[in-house]
């Protein structure tokens, strides 16, 4: 083979590669379709992530319930609903034997003494 003028430019920019008729239209359509699939896939939360989000949500709900129970318990402890009148009523319903037992056992109780 002769190298024309020993310069590559004389080889020209022709290439031996070819493609079928209408190939680039078809390739463009395939590329756009792939991008469309990519968009749909990206918009869908992957299963792994969704499972993680589910666990987080359940933990949050459990924590909220625990918080409500703790708050109610604390409120009950701070303001007992059992009044002195209730205690008196229960005391009156007791047998004289039980009343004597309580009187004996708690006669020195400072808190009971204060209520009298």
């Amino acid at each position, binding site marked *: 083979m002769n*190298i024309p003028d020993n310069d590559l430019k004389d080889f020209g920019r022709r290439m031996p590669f070819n493609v079928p008729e209408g190939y680039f239209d078809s390739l463009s359509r395939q590329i756009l379709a792939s991008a469309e699939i990519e968009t749909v896939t990206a918009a869908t939360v992957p299963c792994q992530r969704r499972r993680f989000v589910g666990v987080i949500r359940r933990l949050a709900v459990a924590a909220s319930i625990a918080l409500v129970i703790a708050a109610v318990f604390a409120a009950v402890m701070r303001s007992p609903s059992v009044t002195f009148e209730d205690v008196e009523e229960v005391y009156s319903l007791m047998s004289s034997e039980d009343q004597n037992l309580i009187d004996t056992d708690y006669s020195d109780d400072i808190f009971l003494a204060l209520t009298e």
Partner: protein
Amino acid sequence: MTDNEIIAAMQTDIHAGFPMLVKAYTEPVYWHIRRMVVSFDDTQDVAQETFLRIYRSFGSFRGDCKLSSWIYRIATNEALRFIERREARPSAASEGDFDAVADEYVDLSDNLSVELQRAIHTLPPKQQAVFNLRYFNELDYAEIAEIVGSTASSAKSSYHIAKEKIKEYILNTSIR
């Protein structure tokens, strides 16, 4: 349609802008990849992957280089990655064996252009990219440097070395 129009459209609504980009760049990107990858089917896969990568990462395009440079850089990297994987296969042809990867979509009867391609494919893949971008795409060295990640002087030097190697190859094969 200009690159600036494509960039503006992509930034406003990527779903409207991307078809514009694909329309403008499918052919040039395809031929750039084809010159390096050669095989018709493989080029199609690499081209699709290139455009998907462009679609996914357009948010990282900061406009500090030309859109075409950015696109060619992604295409070049995808082609180089593909060639590296192909050459790592146990059944891979020896490096630079153009005929081993040429398929029915290569016109082997076109002696002059086939001989030039055989010579180009004796070069390391990255040097092929530099040579092709200068010889076929007629890009300036600064733009080639942006694409292959080097300096303009390095790209110029790489092109001239490549050209000498190609001439030597052609001269040697024509003597035989």
